């Protein structure tokens, strides 16, 4: 018994020592939350497995545009002495690791959005990662790492590696600006057209365009991902306590109703196609042929927009290269315009505030069912290195989460990176309950958009209270969807 006690106390001391060492290392990288080194070190011993095959599940665009092929070729070349071969998993990019992994049918490394990946943590289907060991650790801002942080068994773990930031952006056609915009549409003379700078001027310009039979600013209000930002900018949020408390649902928080009111106003400059997802789908074609002046979309669709514009220019007689060059020149992607602080889009003298977007961080995670965790980690490290992330940016036009790549690429990348670090992007919650927010929000937004087209006596949303009530219903429906049948959580 005595010998036993000695061993236990030695083990305790040893692990405390490790903990202390871990603490030391972490504090100089500015990370105040300690990540327990024990489990991750046990899993990722550092000994590379030999002669193994690892399956990589990437998203379809990366495969389509050839990025994955390049990444895999480069990695295989680098690690050929170990006999490690990475291959395309050849599976559905939205597969459910919780269902397939335990039975051996999942990938080893997977790339998805943070909310999709983090829902696997509760069931321990993805490994916690020793992220300090990775090359990219210092380059990625804390808010991005936070998106992949989770608390399990009393300790905090990081279970994914951020690669790029996704947030809604404004796409517009430079060649569809009015001829005289520099004199008429640039009040502060800063070289940026006012209508892409703030929503009040965008509203005015769209109305003018509408009178002449065209469309100005168009987007599907139905899309929660885009419309939520309007609510967030006025105080709304998804879940409380930094998106961790699903009992506190915040779509009606603060003055979010002003955002809803503004959305209904925006519907007025569009047409009925904003009520469902029609505009999201036809945006590429219509921006391409000039029917729309500006739309909202995500950075990863940049190449699709260019393709459609290219087709149109080619129809006008340009060669393929000329068309591509012209498209790249005339298609501008920039941040979403500023919003009026008082929520009144028709007030010329409004003070402007920034649009707070609903965004996501896409990244890599390692399946807990992999037979080669060290090889998988090596792959993730390789794929998140400067060269590979820069390559990804070149191929796919993404906004990198690595500071060095973002600053190097400049433009959009840098813009999004800055927004992220300054808190103007509200990252999607990583808890499982997030899957319940979509349908209630879609129903409300659809109703809101439709209201703009109903005859006056049938309209539902007229006073501020109406909007507040609508948002409160959204909160309640989400709460019900999460808690009513949930046996493990208690009703507040």
């Amino acid at each position, binding site marked *: 018994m005595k010998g036993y006690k000695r061993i236990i106390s030695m083990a305790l001391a040893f692990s405390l020592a490790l903990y202390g060492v871990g603490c030391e290392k972490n504090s100089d990288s500015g990370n105040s939350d300690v990540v327990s080194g024990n489990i991750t070190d046990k899993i990722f011993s550092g000994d590379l497995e030999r002669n193994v095959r690892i399956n990589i599940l990437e998203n*379809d665009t990366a*495969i*389509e545009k050839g990025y994955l092929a390049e990444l895999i070729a480069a990695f295989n070349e680098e690690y050929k002495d170990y006999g490690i071969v990475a291959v395309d998993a*050849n*599976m*559905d990019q939205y*597969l459910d690791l919780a*269902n*397939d992994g335990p*039975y051996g*049918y999942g990938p080893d490394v997977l790339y998805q959005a943070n909310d999709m990946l983090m829902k696997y943590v509760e069931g321990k289907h993805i490994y916690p990662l020793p992220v300090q060991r990775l090359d990219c650790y210092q380059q990625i801002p804390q808010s991005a790492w936070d998106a992949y942080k989770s608390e399990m068994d009393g300790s905090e773990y990081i279970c994914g590696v951020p690669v790029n930031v996704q947030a809604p952006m404004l796409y517009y056609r430079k060649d569809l600006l009015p001829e005289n915009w520099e004199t008429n549409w640039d009040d502060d003379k800063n070289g940026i057209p006012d209508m892409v700078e703030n929503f009040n001027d965008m509203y005015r310009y769209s109305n003018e365009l509408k009178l002449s039979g065209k469309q100005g600013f168009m987007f599907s209000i139905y899309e929660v991902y885009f419309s939520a930002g309007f609510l967030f900018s006025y105080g709304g949020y998804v879940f409380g306590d930094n998106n961790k408390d699903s009992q506190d649902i915040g779509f009606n928080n603060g003055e979010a109703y002003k955002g809803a009111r503004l959305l209904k106003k925006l519907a007025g400059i569009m047409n009925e196609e904003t009520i469902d997802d*029609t505009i999201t*789908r*036809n945006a*590429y*074609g*219509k921006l391409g*042929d000039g029917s729309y002046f500006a739309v909202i979309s995500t950075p990863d669709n940049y190449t*699709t927009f260019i393709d*459609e514009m290219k*087709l149109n220019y080619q129809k006008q007689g340009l060669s393929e290269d000329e068309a591509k060059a012209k498209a790249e020149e005339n298609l501008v992607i920039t941040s979403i315009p500023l919003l009026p602080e008082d929520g009144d889009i028709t007030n010329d003298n409004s003070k402007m505030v920034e649009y707070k977007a609903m965004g996501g961080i896409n990244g890599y995670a390692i399946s807990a069912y992999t037979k080669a965790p060290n090889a998988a980690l090596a792959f993730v490290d390789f794929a998140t290195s400067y060269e590979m992330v820069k390559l990804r940016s070149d191929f796919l036009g993404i906004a990198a989460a690595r500071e060095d790549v973002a600053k190097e690429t400049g433009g959009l990348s840098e813009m999004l990176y800055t927004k992220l670090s300054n808190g103007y992007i509200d990252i999607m919650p990583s808890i499982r309950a997030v899957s319940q927010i979509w349908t209630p929000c879609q129903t409300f937004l659809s109703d809101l958009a439709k209201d703009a087209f109903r005859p006056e006596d049938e309209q539902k949303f007229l006073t501020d209270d109406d909007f507040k009530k609508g948002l409160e219903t959204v909160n309640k429906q989400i709460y019900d969807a999460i808690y009513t049948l949930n046996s493990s959580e208690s009703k507040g």
Partner: protein
Amino acid sequence: MSKKRSFSKYIDSIITHLILIIVSIFFLFPCLWLVLASFSKSGSIYSYDGFFPKEFSLNSFKTLFTDVGLYNYPEWFKNTLLISVFTCLLSTFLVIATAYAMSRFKFKARKPIMKTTLILGMFPSFMGMIAVYLLMTQFNLINSHWGLILIYSAGAPMGYLTQKGFFDTISISIDEAAKIDGATNFQIFLKINLPLSKPIIVYTALTSFTWPWSDFILPKLLLKEKDLYTVAVGLMNLGETEFSRFAAGSVFIAVPIVILYFFLTKFMVNGMMAGAVKG
């Protein structure tokens, strides 16, 4: 007298054909739209002029079969063809046999089986999907086409009621005559009833052949690798900007089914009953 009759027959024929044309348009119209869409140059559905694409090209068909990097349509087509041929053969055999046995024989377990199968068929199927998936993992039949064939064929006899209804209308007097001549039940089944039931065999063969082409729930559950997909799952995966390819793929699915239909249609007519029992 005959002039009047032939005149009313004539009117009857015109009205009939008018209705036929309306019916045919009703069924053809969405298919036609899909066909037109498959010939559209642009991938996006929204660049159409009402129902008609603005520009036409054979591009979608070409890319459907050549651009196999992400969307390996030829492979999916082959997979589905394989699965549906075997399912058709196996299912038809099992269902016809079951329906015949239930119709022709009287045994104690019969009525209970009839009631049980009726009830069992009413369970919402997708809850059972979890169980099917788990069973398949235990049998190691995930990512295997034979797993699908097995499930489709094994479950087919549950639908025997339709075929039994047909067998119930075949008179047993021929059977009895044959029995007197010394034939076994097996011989009666093979030589007498089977030839008589060509229409229902055709129906069963056609429906069991068609089902794997349109079912995407089961293949999505059991097939994990994209190269193993069937056409239904594969098309579901196609992005939205690829609508003309989606349409082309869908139209192509109809091809084997319609071919099979024309091939089997001559068996549909069954005019033998008259006179078989008389005398």
